[in-house]
Each structure stands twice: as structure tokens, then as C-alpha cells.
């Protein structure tokens, strides 16, 4: 609760309130980075070299590749004030489709690079479908994407007819152990995606419009920006990134199956909100998300070293989402939340 000073005049009181709001906003901005640094210090103290060693840092870099790409896609959606719950399905579907169309044990079509296009393309189509359902049928985004999670899981399952294809292409099989400058190839791909997203966010009109639509739809609408196009574009972009994430998952696993996607949504959700991108929309961005992903990965990694039951991790993610949202959500007697 704010400290109230009744001595001032009404105008001063008003100014004071704005000031204190700005102060806490600045605090909240730095909080994620503080949390990350704090966690690194704590884990270094508790686990010593087990945590802060070159090999473990490499592990962290390796682990964060897939969550980062997923979270990047989700970031844009959340910046709109919407949400995408389809992740578990789309990521799994992309992985399955990718494995089906490269050299594999089950099926005979080897399309090489085109399998990437197919997998990512289908994901983008799903993103488009979610966007259309949301924008034109006015279905809340969480519901539309929730339904698509199941639809995509089904498509992924059908694509390999119950026989998960194992990738036999030697080039792809070698990718998980390919390093460049000491960093895994897969991590480079995710960092490339990060740079791409940063570019879209900061250097294109589309990126600027996402912020505007998330802040207040009526402002961009009044200057002639098509809010519908921006929203649908964001869902397609998210679909693209989920597709890439699915391919990364398939490459790492060496096999295409729907399970690549399972359990990918909560860490991504947690990473985005912990990074400081507000669910109300308009705030945050991909830089926040990379901090959030680092927080989640370091936490995961630290807990693993401490020998915590991996099943607890999902629960921890749920609690983190709840706490992060509770800390950032707008409150007040008259606020209506549904």
C-alpha cells in the first residue's frame, strides 16, 4: 500500500501518486535481472563448481535453446494482451512433421530442407487459423489456441500413424553435437531467432504496432493501422517460431513425436511473465524474455543439480506464473477480472 500524505493539496497528491507509480514501475523493470543474478549467486554458493563450471554453463546454453524460441513466439502474443496456449500441440506437430519428411526409419519421402518449410509452414497456417478465429469470430485467444493445442496434437499424431520416425539423415543426426565457437549449433539457431525477433520488435513498423495494439487498440485504429492485421500477423509469427522450436526439438531427440511439445507451454509462459512482459499487453519485449528464459533455465538446472524430483519442476513453473502475475496485475476495488 502506498503511503498517503494528507497534508498536500489535491494536485500535489495527484503528482505524488504518479511519482510513486513511476518509482515502482522502475523497480519492477529491474526485478527480473536482480532475480537472475541472485539465483546465479545462490546456486554458485550451494552447488559450487557443479553449477558454475564451463561444462554446466554449456549445458544451460544447450537447454535454453528450445524454450527460448518458444518463449519468443509467445512474447509477441502476450504483448498484444492475448495468449497462445497451443504451444504443446504446435511444437510437437512441427517436430513430427519435420521428422516424417527427412531421411528416417519409417517413411520414404526425403525432402531434405523442404521438410523444414513444410513443418514451419503448417505451424504458420495454424497460427493464421488461431488468429482468424480470434479476430474475426471474436473467440478469446486463450480458448481458440487451447482448442488448437488438441487439434495440432491430433495432426501430429496422425502424421506418423503411431510409429514415431527416427531420423537417420547423417547431417541432421550430427547437429546436436555440432559446436561453433564452443557453443552448440542449436543454441546459435535460437540466438539467431532472438536477433530476428529483436529486429522485428525494434526496427519494423509491425513491431511498433504490436506495442500500440497491446496498450490501447483504439489509438492505432484511429490513425488507420489495421489492428486485425497486426493481431493475425503476430499469431502467424508465433506459429513460425513454434515451428522452429519443434524442429529443434526433433533434431535434439533424433526422432519425431508429439511428445516433443509436451510440457513446453508452462516454462515458456513462466519465462515470459517472469521476464516482465505484462499479461495486460503493451509492455515488455524479447529482451525481457531472454532474461526470463535464463531465469527458468538456471532454476531448472540448479534444481536438477540439487537432485530435486523433476516432477516438482512443473509445479514450480505453475507457482512462478501465479506469483509473477499476482505481482504485476492491476488491482483496485473497481477492477473487474474475468
Amino acid at each position, binding site marked *: 500500500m502506498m503511503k498517503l500524505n494528507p497534508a498536500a493539496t489535491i494536485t500535489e497528491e495527484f503528482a505524488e501518486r504518479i511519482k510513486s507509480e513511476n518509482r515502482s514501475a522502475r523497480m519492477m523493470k529491474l526485478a527480473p535481472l536482480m532475480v537472475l543474478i541472485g539465483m546465479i549467486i545462490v546456486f554458485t554458493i550451494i552447488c559450487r563448481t557443479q553449477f558454475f563450471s564451463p561444462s554446466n554453463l554449456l549445458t544451460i546454453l544447450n537447454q535454453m535453446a528450445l524454450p527460448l524460441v518458444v518463449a519468443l513466439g509467445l512474447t509477441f502474443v502476450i504483448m*498484444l*494482451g*492475448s*495468449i497462445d*496456449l497451443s504451444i504443446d500441440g504446435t511444437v510437437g506437430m512441427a517436430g513430427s512433421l519435420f521428422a516424417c519428411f527427412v531421411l528416417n526409419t519409417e517413411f520414404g519421402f526425403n525432402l531434405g530442407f523442404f521438410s523444414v518449410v513444410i513443418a514451419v509452414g503448417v505451424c504458420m497456417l495454424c497460427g493464421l487459423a488461431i488468429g482468424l*478465429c*480470434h479476430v474475426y*469470430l*471474436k*473467440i*478469446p*485467444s*486463450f*480458448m*481458440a489456441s*487451447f*482448442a*488448437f*493445442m*488438441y*487439434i495440432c*496434437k*491430433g*495432426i*501430429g*499424431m*496422425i502424421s506418423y500413424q*503411431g510409429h514415431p520416425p527416427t531420423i537417420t539423415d547423417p547431417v541432421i543426426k550430427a547437429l546436436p553435437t555440432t559446436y561453433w565457437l564452443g557453443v552448440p549449433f542449436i543454441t546459435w539457431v535460437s540466438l539467431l531467432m532472438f536477433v530476428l525477433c529483436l529486429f522485428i520488435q525494434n526496427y519494423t513498423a509491425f513491431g511498433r504496432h504490436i506495442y500500440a495494439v497491446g496498450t490501447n*487498440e483504439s489509438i492505432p485504429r484511429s490513425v488507420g493501422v489495421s489492428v486485425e492485421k497486426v493481431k493475425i500477423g503476430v499469431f502467424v509469427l508465433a506459429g513460425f517460431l513454434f515451428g522452429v522450436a519443434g524442429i529443434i526439438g526433433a533434431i535434439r531427440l533424433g526422432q519425431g513425436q*508429439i511428445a516433443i511439445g509436451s510440457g513446453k507451454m*508452462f516454462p515458456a*509462459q513462466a519465462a515470459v511473465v517472469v521476464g516482465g512482459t505484462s*499479461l495486460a*499487453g503493451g509492455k515488455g519485449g524479447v529482451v525481457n524474455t531472454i532474461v526470463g528464459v535464463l531465469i527458468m533455465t538456471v532454476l531448472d538446472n540448479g534444481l536438477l543439480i540439487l537432485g530435486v*524430483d523433476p*516432477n*516438482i*519442476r*512443473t*509445479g*514450480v*513453473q*505453475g*507457482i512462478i*506464473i*501465479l506469483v509473477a*502475475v*499476482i505481482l504485476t*496485475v*492491476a*488491482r*483496485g476495488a*473497481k*477492477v*473487474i*477480472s*474475468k
Partner: protein
Amino acid sequence: MTTKTSLAAKNRGGVRENIMKYFSFSAIIILVVALSLTQENWLGTTNLSNLLRDTAPLMIMSAGMTMVLLFGSIDLSMGAVCSVSNVTYVHFILAFQDVFVSPWIASVLGMLVSLAFGLGSGIALGLIHVKLKVPSFIASLGFMSLWQSVALLITQNPESVPKAMWETIEWYKVSFGVLGLPLVFALIIIVLFYCITRFTPSGRAIFAIGGNERTARVAGMNVDRTKLIVFAVNGVLAALAGIFLAANLRSSAPTIGDAFTLKIVAACALGGTSLAGGKGSELGTILGVFTVAIIENGMNFIGVDAYSQNVVFGIFVLLAIAITVDRRVRGQIVK
């Protein structure tokens, strides 16, 4: 002139509102006719009683979800609560079967523990949503993640109810013709909630809150308390469904509830309950539940796998919501 246009608008509204009920009703008839004509043994007693028995958990949970949807919120954690309750019940029986003289004591205590868990989860979710103003879908999503993890922590693998305890869950198999006791129980529950939402002051408040929460608040209704109670009841119902599932299968599974979340929403939406709140009824949900159950049973019978079934349910949810969403309001912002 004004009366004419308003009358026309009313008729349109009436058709719109009931369209899902007509749809569900005709879907049920068409499905039953088609399945009984094409599939030989579909109309047989075994399948019918299976179908009606398996419907009970879905109906219980949909009864709760309908109330949550009626005031404009949603609870995505029901499936996970159901899972936790399911494994807790069986785990409790296994742990305490030798402690008490009668198997009934262990069984009943296990039920109470499970139900208490559901109540606690519902209250906690309600408090986070109502007092801390966290949107219900994200709050319940967090709970879903939390309870999925807890269920797996209690047991990784399915556990069976020991033979000695079977007598305490035999009630689930009692049936009157094709109509099983569980379904009768579920129907009683859903009709009870129909009466509560239609005829009691607090129940009617749900419709007012869903129609316009701000008005309900200013008019002096205790909005927070009503929401909290509904979430609490919803948690208990999800837990009850978990016990039903354990009794039905004579075993537990930590992920048993996951598949339910989509089906619950599908049943409510097909029953005509609007996602925006204020419109719908528990009786419509009964129709929706049977539609979902028959589709599922029919697909099982034909041999469609669970994943393809989910594709069908996903599309059904989208269709049903797209039809019930009110797009006449200009300039509304959907997030």
C-alpha cells in the same frame, strides 16, 4: 415502429440463444440413429450401459464448469484437480487399508481427504482470482501446472485398488437396467445445481454477475463471495469426478484428468453456455455432455484413436463458441 424492431431483435436473440440446444439435440438424435444403423452392436446393452456409466464424471465436472462460465470466468485446472483427487484416493486406500478394521473406514476417509483437497484447491483458486484479481484462465492455468506436478509426485504409475477394498467401490457398478447409479447421481447433482442457479438468491446472482459484473456490484450483490463459493464447489466436483474415475477403473492414473479439460469446455459450449457469461443453463449442459459422450463413444466404437478424437473436440469447441459469441456489439475488445 420501435416495438416492431425490438420484437424482431428479440426473436433473433431467442434463436441465437437456443441454437446450440437445438444443435445438440439434433446431433444426439442423428448420432444415435447413424451409429445404431451402421454399427451392429452399438445399441447393445453392454455398450449403452458403458456409455451411460462413463458419462458421469464428465457430467459432474461440466455441472461445475457451467456455473463458472455463467459468471464469465473459466477453470482450466479441473482436469488436474480430478487427477490429484484420483491418485490421492487410491493412494490413501493403499496406505491405510490395514490400519482400520473395516475397509469402509479407509475408503470413506480417503474420499473425504480427496474432497477436502478439491475444496481447498477451489478456495485457493477463487481467492487468487477474486481477491488478487488474477484473470481466471491464467490463475487456473497455474493451478493446472501445479496439480499435474503434484499428481505425478504422489504416484508416477497407475496404482490398483486392492481386492479387499473392492466392496467399497462396488456401488459404482450398480445399475437399473442400462442406467447406472453413477449417472443417476450425476444427474441429481446437475439438476440440483440447475435449481440452485435458477431459484436461490445466490444462484440467480451468478447470472447477474455474468451479465454485468459492475452492475451486480453496484446493486449491492456480494460478487466476491458468490464467485468464491462457486470456485470452491467447482473444486469439490472435480475431486468427486476423480473418485468416480477411481471407482470405475479400480485403479488410479496421475494423468487421467488431463483429457477432460477440453471435453468439459466442449460439453458446456455445445450446451449453449456462453463463454462471455450470463447466458446458458445447466439443463443445456446435460445435452452437451451427452453429445460429447456419444461422439466419444461412437469414435471409440469405430476405432478412432484418442488424438484424432481431440481434433474433433477441438473443432467442436471452436464451432460452438463461434456460434454462441455475440458479435453484434460494435467496437468490443476481445483479448
